[in-house]
């Protein structure tokens, strides 16, 4: 009898020890994430109801910041203007990025030599810092002496003002960001393509389908979760885009490249309108949250890189 009691006690002691250790192990991470993610994501709603410049007194103004953003000029025209810029940017960049990276992935999945070398070369720009590479592209885009215009002049093609003109500034940003992320979406498409069973493609081919038919009837539908995933993270990325705009155009000319992420920065850390900018942040969150829900609904995936990168890299 005593032996049984001792055994049971030991077992219980072990269970208590295990759950104490469990809490001990998760506590550093939970403490950091509570302080710098959970708490601020509630706190931001409170700040969005204030008229506050981060130094002086706080005035509670209810939902005035939101009604200003949504309806009252000049705020509404600034905010919706930035949304429009973002939408234009998405319309230009996302189809380009998806089609190019899908073609690249299909080519890289073929039995070719030097696959590792090509993959490396296409991916390398993704890991490089944004300020440094933005500076390099500013030099390439330089209207007078930049490589791009010189190249166009050699081919007797019309040149452009690139970052200094409108709408060429937005197109320049699209070129730069496509250059920066193309490797990332290519890798995702390659991962998606490995999930398409080769037996299906073989079977279709035996049944007489040509390469085109195999692609549109088998590969493309089976890739649709990946495509949708890339579509959503590109849209989220567009709403949050900051660094290339800050370095290359400063939102100009005439606010034609002022994306929502950049507008938020200007309002918060140049105009020091903490309450108003927090309301913009909440609107940004609503857009991104809606996109994330769509993504989960259609693909069952959580948008990992979107969330983490913004925290890690602060684009």
């Amino acid at each position, binding site marked *: 009898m005593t032996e049984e009691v001792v055994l049971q006690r030991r077992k219980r002691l072990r269970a208590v020890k*295990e759950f104490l*250790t*469990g*809490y001990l192990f998760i506590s*550093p*991470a*939970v403490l950091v994430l509570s302080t710098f*993610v959970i*708490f*601020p*994501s509630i706190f*931001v709603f409170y*700040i969005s109801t204030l008229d506050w410049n*981060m130094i002086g007194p706080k005035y509670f103004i209810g939902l005035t910041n939101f009604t200003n953003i949504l309806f009252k000029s000049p705020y509404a025209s600034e905010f919706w203007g930035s949304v429009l810029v973002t939408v234009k940017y998405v319309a230009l960049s996302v189809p380009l990025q998806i089609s*190019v990276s899908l073609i*690249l992935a299909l*080519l*890289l999945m073929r039995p*070719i030599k030097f696959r590792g070398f*090509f993959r*490396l*070369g*296409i*991916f*390398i720009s993704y*890991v490089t*810092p*944004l*300020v*440094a590479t933005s*500076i*390099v592209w500013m*030099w390439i885009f330089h209207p007078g*002496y930049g*490589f791009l215009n010189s190249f166009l002049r*050699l081919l007797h093609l019309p040149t452009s003002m690139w970052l200094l003109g409108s709408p060429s500034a937005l197109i320049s940003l699209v070129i730069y960001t496509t250059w920066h992320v*193309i490797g990332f979406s290519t*890798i995702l498409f*390659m*991962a998606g393509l490995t*999930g398409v069973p080769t037996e299906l493609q073989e079977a279709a081919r035996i049944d007489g389908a040509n390469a085109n038919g195999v692609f549109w009837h088998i590969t493309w539908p089976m890739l649709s979760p990946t495509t949708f*995933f890339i579509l959503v993270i590109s849209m989220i990325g567009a709403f*949050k885009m900051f660094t290339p705009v800050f370095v290359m155009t400063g939102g100009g000319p005439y606010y034609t490249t002022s994306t929502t992420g950049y507008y*938020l*920065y200007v309002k*918060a850390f140049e105009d020091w309108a903490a309450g108003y*900018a927090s309301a913009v942040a909440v609107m*940004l*969150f609503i857009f991104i949250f809606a996109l*994330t829900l769509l993504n989960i609904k259609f693909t069952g995936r*959580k*948008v990992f*890189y*979107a*969330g*983490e990168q913004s*925290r*890690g890299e*602060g*684009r």
Partner: protein
Amino acid sequence: MKRLKTVKLSNVLTYTALTIVLIFTAFPFYWMIASSLNRPETLFAFPPKLIPDFYFQNYIEMWHNPPGGVSWWRYIGNTVFIAGTTTILSVFNSSLAGFAFAKLKFPLRNKIFILLLGLLMIPGEMLLIPNYVILKNLHWLNTYQAMIIPWCASVFGIFLTRQFFKTIPNELWEAAQVDGCSIGRYFFAVAVPLAKPTLLTLALFVFLGSWNAFLWPLIVATDYAIMPLEVALNSFRGTEGTQWGLLTAASTMVTAPVLILFLIFQRQFIEGIARGAIKG
């Protein structure tokens, strides 16, 4: 015979297309280095000169004119210190939590884990203003910890390490328990060595994210003495506006370490991205 020909033709097209894209992605790096080695007058030559002058004066002049009156060594040291510390702390904290969520039984375990996963939906931009206010109240603005502590745990890291620790068979832990091994010792002596490849992948991503970070340090580090390299480079752009030889030299200096790190660990980077995307 005909089939062989079409195969050959499509191979030629494949290599041509890939080479064109490769030139598009790699050329800016070449142009950055080539421009940094050109004399000022060569920079403005038409047609552009593809082979540089190998003129190293740009680097010397860039090095002697750092922004803000603090030496470039200081900025390099700041970035290495911030990125290194963040990486060590983040990998340590995330793997501790990942292990607990994978292997230890405690009340509310799964609820807490799902709550943490939900945090991935929160865009970092939404946290900028409240976190700035928090740091201001902690008197942490213009300190190293402002750029380290908020990033020293990552949900992605917890998720990634938990996935790995789940694959360690439970028999191993039971056997260790019979031998009187504590949970802590088991974690450090058995689980962590097994998880080395996963932890290396995580460390690379955290290090890269911290090295390339811009928006957050731009806001919280206005003092040159603690500024990381990317923010200092932005100031340098402000002071050297049109000196493209100097600007490309500085950009080369900031980009080179990342390129080298990537070339060494490219397999881990690429697999890490593919894994995060599939398992998600």
